[in-house]
């Protein structure tokens, strides 16, 4: 048996990295491994960005109607075309329409007119507006050279309003209602669940009974009753906030449960005992020691709560008890679309439904990913 004499020194075995990483940092590292969740994160970010930049991104004003283009089908956006002389045209553009009115059947018929090519301009000039009601601007992301030309990438509704623009503005309302509802739920959930979990005992018992009670109520009748009770002369904004509060009345219970559970298990952890022995106040223990240790869980739980809020908003609008026209939300847009006529002749008006599905999917995947990342060893 030959003995190999090695010149090289014993290779140092790298000690395991024990770098101190914040919990959020750890969570982020684990989260990045979830490909679907990561994609979903971008989808959600995209939609929220759209919500924030609604005025800038929408090609037209969402309430700008045009008699000539009621129920105009989507133009789509094209990039290549062959010119008459056979050369190629590059760049984004849409085709015009040829329209006819059928007075017997009461409708306009549209044919995409491939003769008319309407180039799409980026950062097109438009009438001045205020972005998010604050920043004065006078350009929009895309637009046509001549603002009077039809520009309906996703088609038009029954008044010839641009569906894309309405969709973009609806995104703002629907997503913010979800976010606002969750924020409110989160506040109640953390405060109530936190105290229940921290002090335990009788207070905890009472809170948990209340939570169980609320969760045993069927939500729609509850919402219906409350929504029917809203003063009808409230302005759109008031209704909007009222609906948000109604939605979070039930939403907080789930978050309170999560928070309470974490508190209960954290209460016995050594670092909390240590802080208590050090004489830290309860408030300090909760805010400085306990809350940061489960921020990640709260983020995950909150993410998973948003879809429910969005779906609830659409359902209430559908029943005519939530937001109402002229407010543009995904719910009111779907309410417009929920008839046989739309299904049969203008299916593109169901686009808001697709948005709902995509966002709900993304939020669910994102929430799942966050939860897994926050708590890799199961729940």
């Amino acid at each position, binding site marked *: 048996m030959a003995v190999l004499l090695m010149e090289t020194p014993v290779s140092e075995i790298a000690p395991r990295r024990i770098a101190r990483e914040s919990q959020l940092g750890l969570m982020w590292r684990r989260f990045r491994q979830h490909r679907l969740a990561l994609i979903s994160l971008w989808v959600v970010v995209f939609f929220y960005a759209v919500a924030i930049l609604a005025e800038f991104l929408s090609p037209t004003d969402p*309430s700008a*109607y*045009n*008699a*000539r283009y*009621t129920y105009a089908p989507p133009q789509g956006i094209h990039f290549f075309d062959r010119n008459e002389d056979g050369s190629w045209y590059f760049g984004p553009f849409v085709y015009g329409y040829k329209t006819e*009115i*059928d*007075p*017997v*059947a*009461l*409708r*306009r018929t549209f044919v995409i007119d491939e003769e008319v090519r309407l180039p799409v301009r980026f950062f097109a000039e438009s009438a001045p507006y205020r972005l998010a009601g604050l920043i004065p601007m006078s350009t929009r992301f895309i637009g046509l050279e001549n603002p009077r030309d039809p520009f309906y990438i996703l088609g038009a509704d*029954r*008044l*010839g309003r641009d569906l894309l623009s309405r969709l973009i503005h609806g995104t703002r309302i629907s997503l913010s209602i979800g976010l606002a509802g969750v924020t409110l739920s989160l506040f109640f959930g953390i405060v109530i669940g936190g105290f229940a979990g921290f002090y335990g005992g009788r207070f905890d018992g009472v809170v948990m009974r209340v939570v169980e009670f609320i969760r045993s109520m069927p939500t729609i009748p509850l919402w219906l009753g409350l929504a029917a009770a809203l003063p*009808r*002369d409230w302005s759109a904004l008031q209704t909007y906030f009222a609906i948000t509060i109604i939605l979070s009345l039930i939403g907080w219970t789930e978050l309170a449960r999560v928070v309470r559970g974490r508190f209960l298990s954290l209460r016995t952890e050594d670092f909390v005992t240590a802080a208590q022995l050090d004489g830290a106040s309860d408030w300090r223990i909760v805010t400085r020691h306990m809350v940061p240790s489960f921020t990640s869980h709260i983020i995950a739980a909150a993410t998973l709560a948003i879809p429910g809020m969005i779906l609830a908003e659409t359902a209430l609008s559908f029943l*005519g008890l939530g937001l*109402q*026209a*002229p407010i543009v939300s995904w719910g009111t847009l779907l309410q417009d679309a*929920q*008839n*046989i*006529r739309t299904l*049969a*002749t203008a299916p593109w008006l169901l686009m808001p439904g697709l948005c709902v599905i995509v966002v709900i999917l993304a939020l669910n995947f994102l929430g799942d990913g966050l939860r897994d990342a926050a708590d890799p060893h199961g729940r």
Partner: protein
Amino acid sequence: MNKTQCFKAAGAVAIVAMLTAAGPALGAGQSPMLDALVQSGEIPPLEERLPANPLVLDAESIGQYGGTWRMGMNGGGDNGLIAKTVAYEGLVRFDREWQTVIPNLAESWEANAEATEYTFKLREGVKWSDGAPFTSADIAFTVEMYQDPEYAASSWIDNINNPATVEVIDDLTFKFKFNRPNGMLMDEMASVNGIHITSLQKAYCSQFHPSYNENAAADAEAAGFSSWALHLQDRCAWGWETIRFANPDLPTLYAWVLDQPLTANASRVTWKRNPYYWKVDSEGNQLPYIDRLDMRVSQGGVEELTLAALNGEIDFQERHIATNVNKPLFFDGQEQGGYHLGAVIPSASNTLVFQLNFSHDDPVKRELFQNRDFRIGISHAIDREEIVDLVFTGQGEPYQVAPRPQSPFYDEELAKQYTEFNPELAIEHLEAAGLTEMNGDGVRLMSDGQPVRITVDVISALRPEWIDILEIMQLQLAAVGVEIELNNIDRTLFYEKRPSNDYDAQVWAGDGGLEVVQEPRYYFPFSDESVWAYRWAQWFNGTRPEIAEEPADWAQEQMELYRQIRSSSDPDERADLMRQILAITKEQFPVIGVSLMPDSYSIIRNNLRNAPETMFNAWLFPTPAPMDPVTWYFE
């Protein structure tokens, strides 16, 4: 008995004589569905069931018996459909053109010159659906019930300003008496409101009232009701109230009797023929031809009903489903569904009536809203062509609130004044109304320096197009410096805001396009529905004296003219008076209209015969019932 009556009676006898003479060859048939019942002795033979002089209906063609007429109700509270198809059986009725009042259960009538006394003669031998004879006693009982405050009904019979009293002369003759002239009684009685008076059978309904049955209270309790009044209301509901159709035991005079009643749980309401129905075709065959009705009850959404109609599961209907939006759908579906579309002319004159509150609490707004120039300015600022094009796909035309072209009261000037879209003219009028200053946002300022901001109450649930029209108007009016804000609210609140005077403006459809005399709410402050002058209308009606306000002189003049209409029994005189009212309306221009309500359509199965290819659609003239569905049949 006057001459006409004699003649009519003689004519009826002659018809009966002819029928008996001609025998079976001339028909005198009944539905095969009834043959077995006659044979088993459950019902008497046809001759004994029919009145001495049945009402003869001339239809395009003689039909055949059988079949089921399928239609759809929207929700459990849709008693309107029944009122418009089955329950339109008053003492008198309108002809198919909605022009004259013709006999129905009463074969003749006459009024005194002051229009305070009306004498009616009932058709002899008419029987309730349980076989009992229909007599003057039933009428007297009905009047008594309506005037009992415990019986929560409301009608011309117990009109607090001019209630009816009844005097029974004999079994078939009775007299209505009024303290004040009631010149429009016959029009009221021929309308859908005329069916109240024939809705209660004394023999059946009296058992629930303590005046006739001392055990009524105990019976009510045994049946689970807390008072006899509730029991009576439940068993014998009035007129065309929803729950009336929940009691299959209630005897009626309708062509069809309840089979599956309209209960809260009903998913369909069905009817079968009334063996005692008292109308025949020109060959003496007992009507109706159609044996059964089947009304499917949708649970609050009409989409399922729309699909059913497309699928050929509806035989005749315009209600609920024949919307503007659905037209292309139904047009395309004709072949697959085996139906075609009939024409329907609405009674309403206008798609949207913009009513400003003349009695606004804010004196500045009150003055502004009462200013004719302001209203003319607004009217000129509306691009009606665009609205017609956009919302109604080109159907209809710019129109004010005025009688429809089909009406004898049609006045082109009234209909068309100030409908031209002319922003310059609009601004001129607005400035004439004192709105000369503007604020930084381009909104005109009122005399108190506040911008003109009008909140418009609207119920989009009722007519979705209202929101569309208003959204367009919002932009058009903004261009001339008038700001309107949409307030989409629910119906209850919409009504509650009126007595509390808590509104700037409300919108509604333009009723009174055909029923000009009966429904003049936009022509002068006539009723609670004259939202533009709600408090003036209270002054006119005296219903809520605590909030009544003395109207402007011109309105008082109109009111006086209308009082004259009420006290006149001469139709020509009434029409003349109405024209005078309309002339003042034209001068004063109280409300702003948008466009002529476009024609609608009905869905008619291809195998349904005698159904009208063209008809009016109104509530007072409750179509299709005046088009005699009893003569329709399936081929």
